């Protein structure tokens, strides 16, 4: 028994990652571990003494980085996200040959569907490419989610929801990306990135949105090297004393500004619009305005980047005037692009922006129901393909709020029951 518990650090060996801070692969592994709640130590390759303790000489070469030392002592060099996930035992196979419901995405909508489906006795499987929680999972503090008067962090909400879903018997497969969907009799098959195929009688696409790309020359070369999409918790502490810029005017950008203000020397929030009021919740605007080291610049866009191997400064344009803003890190929290890559090929009807059309919206969009085979109309969250549903941010017309996504994820299970009854056997 120890007399002291200073920091609740795990007492068993942790994952150790050795690499160059500017490595985008290293960033993706850090992000994966962080978002899945796996403790790890990051060792910069320039820390010669520590590196010598950890690695034999042959594994310190640039082409061997990043190196991941697993808790059991196994070294992966160079490490990949998939290799790390497999090495940690986080990649499992589906336990059944067929499910009632396959859920694509473990964000708020997907997790809510998993909880309600499993709690109502459906055989449910959720596929998640990165980590439970989706975009909401990276949110530092959701203060207006019902029932949490002091707020709850996105990661904690996701952790609780995941535990809840598993307690009811839902399966969640991590580190698997959906490759494509095919029709499979009256149901569907989800084909995953590792070749696994999962059959189910109904399917829910709750794959959410990706951050919208910023079109600035040279930005892709700096991803993970000072430029990041979203504002993942893994990077906040490493920005201690840095100059941070955040692009975006929505709640995600506001929450990122609050999070980084705790660590960074200075935070600049770059907003294309004329004010924050149109896009950010008032409670966040108030908090951002009260932070001394956060500056909000409206009517401003990033038009260029200065870098060596790492981001050094931004060129920003405001009212036709271009100026230079020193920045060690740039976080892009702008809008969203629907994540339908793996799902769209099966023939789902999409709106002009690529979001999935459902329910009554299908009837009002020409041609969407041309191949609809049933006498009934699509159910409220059903796509133009019977038994294939969509919920959350990926759905056309959805309210981009965590609570709204959870509501849709809960609601869709009742509709899945209707579909399964239609197929018989329920």
């Amino acid at each position: 028994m120890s007399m002291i518990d200073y920091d609740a650090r795990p007492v068993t060996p942790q994952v150790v990652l050795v690499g160059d801070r500017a490595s985008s692969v290293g960033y993706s592994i850090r992000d994966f571990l962080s978002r899945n709640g796996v403790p790890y130590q990051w060792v910069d390759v320039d820390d010669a003494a520590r590196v010598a303790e950890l690695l034999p000489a042959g594994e310190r070469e640039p082409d061997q980085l990043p190196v991941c030392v697993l808790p059991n002592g196994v070294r992966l060099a160079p490490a990949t996200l998939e290799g790390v996930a497999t090495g940690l035992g986080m990649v499992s196979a589906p336990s059944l040959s067929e499910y009632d419901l396959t859920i694509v995405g473990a964000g708020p909508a997907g997790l809510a569907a998993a909880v309600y489906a499993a709690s109502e006795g459906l055989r449910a499987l959720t596929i998640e490419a990165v980590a439970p929680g989706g975009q909401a999972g990276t949110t530092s503090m959701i203060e207006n989610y019902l029932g949490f008067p002091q707020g709850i962090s996105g990661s904690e909400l996701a952790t609780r929801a995941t535990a809840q879903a598993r307690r009811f018997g839902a399966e969640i497969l991590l580190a698997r990306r959906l490759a494509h969907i095919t029709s499979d009799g009256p149901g569907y098959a989800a084909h995953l990135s590792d070749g696994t195929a999962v059959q189910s009688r109904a399917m829910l696409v709750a794959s959410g949105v990706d951050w919208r790309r910023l079109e600035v020359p040279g930005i892709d070369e700096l991803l993970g090297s000072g430029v990041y999409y979203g504002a993942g918790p893994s990077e906040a502490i490493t920005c201690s004393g840095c100059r941070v810029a955040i692009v975006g005017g929505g709640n995600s950008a506001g929450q990122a500004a609050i999070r980084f203000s705790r660590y960074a020397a200075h935070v600049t929030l770059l907003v294309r619009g004329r004010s924050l009021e149109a896009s950010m919740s008032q409670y966040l605007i108030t908090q951002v305005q009260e932070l001394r080291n956060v500056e909000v610049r409206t009517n401003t866009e990033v038009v260029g980047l200065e870098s060596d191997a790492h981001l050094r400064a931004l060129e920003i344009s405001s009212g036709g005037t271009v100026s230079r803003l020193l920045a060690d890190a740039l976080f892009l929290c702008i809008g969203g692009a629907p994540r339908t890559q793996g799902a769209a090929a099966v023939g789902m009807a999409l709106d002009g922006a690529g979001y999935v059309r459902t329910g009554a919206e299908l009837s009002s969009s020409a041609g969407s129901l041309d191949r609809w085979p049933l006498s009934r109309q699509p159910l409220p969250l059903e796509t133009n393909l019977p038994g294939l549903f969509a919920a959350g941010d990926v759905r056309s017309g959805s309210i981009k709020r965590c609570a709204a996504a959870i509501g849709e994820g809960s609601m869709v299970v009742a509709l899945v029951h209707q579909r399964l009854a239609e197929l018989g056997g329920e």
Partner: protein
Amino acid sequence: MGAGPSKAAEAEFSRAASKGQIRAVADSLERHGISCTVVDSGEEARGAVRSILPEGAEVYNNTSRTLEVTGVAEDIERSGQYQPLRPRLYQMDREMQAREMRQLSASPDWVAGSVHALTEDGSLIIASASGSQLGPIASGAGHVVLIVGAQKIVSDFDTGLRRIYEYCFPLEDRRARQAYGVSSGVNTVLVINSTIAPGRTTVILVNEPLGF
């Protein structure tokens, strides 16, 4: 500090109690409402903990040399059988999630740990520098599992306190300086004489020295 315990303290407090003493202590604990299982080795203690903790349980494992050497810490943090709180807390943002961290660590469904002394009449004595381990054991946790090596059995309460000051503290202080770069302290002490919630607390008494 950091020199470790004196030779006299080492001799007095590192020796395992006899099987007869262990049996008597086990009876005392049971009389006070604390379940007690006696096992012969750390490996058996590990098996006993596995049989007690329900699959999927939310568990906080206190920092404990006893839990480390028996493999119980590894089971809790890495087996995938439970929801371990320690890795979850470690990942949290100390600035933004301080309140969540405090709540989680204060009231786990299960807490696993050890004690610094166990008297022959069945009193458990635990010291802490921060006090963070004591609240869950006293009342915050739903269930408590304590693994106790046979060298921790002492004749009475005063000897138990002496064991803490003269033996445990010097060893813990040395460990804390090495692990955290700060000294430890006997700042808070919990004494459990009895419990009014039978079945909440289980002591696994091991017939060999474990931890300190």
